[in-house]
């Protein structure tokens, strides 16, 4: 009976129910998408770095794991010293340049030979390796996003590049150019942002890292296999706080809309509340009826939010193929739980007001 009452009440005012459902849906979708976008981008970046195939990454002292924002403070000669360490098979310098002009990109300046030595090379889908100083390699996701093909000219960093090849994604960056050209462009002669090291055997990684720490004390030396576990929002300064703030904002919006929806519901149903009281319904019954209605509305909103999340992700990825949005069931359930809690909080005051209405006054309400 309570179920029928709730369903019929929700159907009775379809527009109001729709607004409530949309508010909860947007709340859930916001949470799922914000968390999905941050974790997706971090995870995808980590996978690309792991996908290089090297064993160790050397960064300047106190460097962030967000390597795309690194400067270029290390002399390339460090690479020569690292190459002399025991169990080191190859080293490769890379200069990382962040570009936000026109589009957001990170360009890696590499030496084709040394990069091939530490990464076992690219998978070329079309075209050829870096040969000329203006050649650029573009991964398939970026090529799709920028609509590029081999032979095209592509302006980046105020420089015209010749697209030499489309490569398979997953090797550190999406755009690769010759190291020396990039050094000239950004004024970082003989400098590198990172060094990649390939050990003779993977099990020698720890030994090489220990020796490298002695060689260049204070530098940040990480195994690439640890990147996936390190690339989480809690390891990025301020990111977790940003996510929490966004979640609270989403919850607040949902809570306020549910509050207003249920408050207007209570006002509209004042006479009905009086009738229920005349039938012997106690305060607990009135509260339960309204909270159940709110929960029903919220559950529909959660389902709508899940659908909205997947729709939004599809739309984002269609427009921005290089984005990565990771929608996971644990976070869908968490977002649903948060929305349900918010809805219960939002409905609790109107329910309390309703339960305390004077029956006689309620019955005479017009």
């Amino acid at each position, binding site marked *: *009976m309570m179920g029928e009452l709730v369903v*019929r*009440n929700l159907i*009775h005012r379809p527009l109001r129910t729709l607004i409530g459902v949309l508010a909860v849906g947007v709340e859930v979708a916001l949470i799922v998408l914000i968390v999905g976008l941050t974790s997706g981008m971090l995870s995808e970046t980590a996978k690309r770095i792991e996908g290089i195939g090297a064993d160790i990454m050397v960064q300047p002292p106190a460097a962030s794991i967000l390597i795309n924002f690194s400067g270029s403070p290390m002399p390339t000669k460090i690479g020569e010293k690292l190459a002399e360490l025991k169990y080191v098979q190859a080293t490769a310098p890379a200069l990382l340049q962040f570009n936000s002009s026109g589009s957001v990109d990170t360009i890696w300046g590499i030496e084709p030979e040394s990069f091939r030595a530490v990464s076992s090379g690219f998978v070329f889908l079309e075209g050829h390796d870096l040969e000329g100083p203006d050649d650029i390699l573009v991964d398939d996701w970026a090529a799709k996003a920028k609509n590029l093909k081999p032979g095209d000219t592509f302006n980046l960093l105020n420089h015209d590049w010749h697209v030499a090849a489309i490569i398979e994604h997953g090797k550190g960056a999406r755009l690769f150019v010759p190291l020396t050209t990039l050094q000239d462009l950004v004024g970082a002669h003989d400098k590198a942002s990172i060094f990649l090291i390939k050990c003779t055997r993977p099990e020698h990684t720890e030994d090489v890292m220990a020796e490298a720490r002695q060689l260049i004390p204070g530098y940040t030396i990480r195994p690439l296999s640890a990147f996936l576990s390190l690339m989480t929002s809690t390891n990025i300064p301020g990111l977790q706080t940003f996510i929490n703030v966004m979640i609270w904002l989403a919850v607040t919006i949902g809570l306020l809309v549910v509050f207003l929806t249920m408050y207007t519901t209570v006002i509209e149903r004042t006479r009905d509340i009086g009738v229920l009281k005349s039938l*012997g319904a*106690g*305060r607990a019954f009135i509260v339960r009826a309204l909270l159940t209605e709110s929960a029903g509305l919220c559950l529909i909103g959660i389902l709508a939010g899940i659908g909205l999340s997947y729709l939004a992700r599809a739309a984002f990825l269609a427009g921005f193929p290089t984005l990565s949005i990771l929608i996971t069931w644990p976070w869908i359930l968490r977002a649903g739980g948060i929305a349900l809690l918010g809805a219960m909080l939002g409905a609790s005051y109107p329910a309390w007001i309703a339960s305390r209405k004077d*029956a006689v006054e309620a019955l005479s309400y017009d």
Partner: protein
Amino acid sequence: MGITATIREPAEGLTVPGKKSLDPILKTENLWKLYRAGKVDVPALRGVNFAVAPGESVAVMGPSGCGKSSLLYVIGGLAQASKGRVLVDGNDLSAMSDAERTKLRRSKIGFVFQRFNLLPTLPAKGNIAIAQFIHGDGFDPHRFEVVTSLLGLAGRLQHKPSELSGGEQQRVAIARAIINEPKILLADEPTGNLDSKNSEVVLQMLRQLNKDLGQTIVMITHNPEATAYFDRVVHMRDGVIVDGVPAD
């Protein structure tokens, strides 16, 4: 359990015309009800003494504002008495908390209102069944069928209040009021929003409930013709009962 369960053996102690001497099922003693209007207490009831025997039907008449509805709400436990006592089936409402009065109302009192007061979102069936649900015994299909058949509602149960005539809505309201077999049925001008034909149908049904099933009924009315359907008529004026005589 069928509708016949409402027939109860009358107790001794009160004389009802044409019936045995009975103890009152409903009694007020020096009942006062004050309403706050701004900073002033306005008395709606000024020391009402009133008794109704089990199985008795009583019509309460009087001009607007004389306190009829206030009396009904107080004896029905919807409003708290300001002073005096209200005894319902031996329970002193004036000494009860809101929760206790709610519980008593749930089991012993049924209300019928002038404006029907059906829940607009539920069909007729849901409007009747919700009373059973609130009562706590769950849906009793046998009892439901007996009551809806008695009130001629069998073919209208899936219709919402907006799809029913005034007479049908009031019959649904009566069905809702008696579905849990309350000892007392309180009706606040139940024919006030009905035409004469539907008024007569409703009054006959109330009389049938009273005569055939022994349902105690207290009804407020402005309609002198309606009093013919009741055992007794009491008149109120300025918050007090001025007489109480058997109906013709």
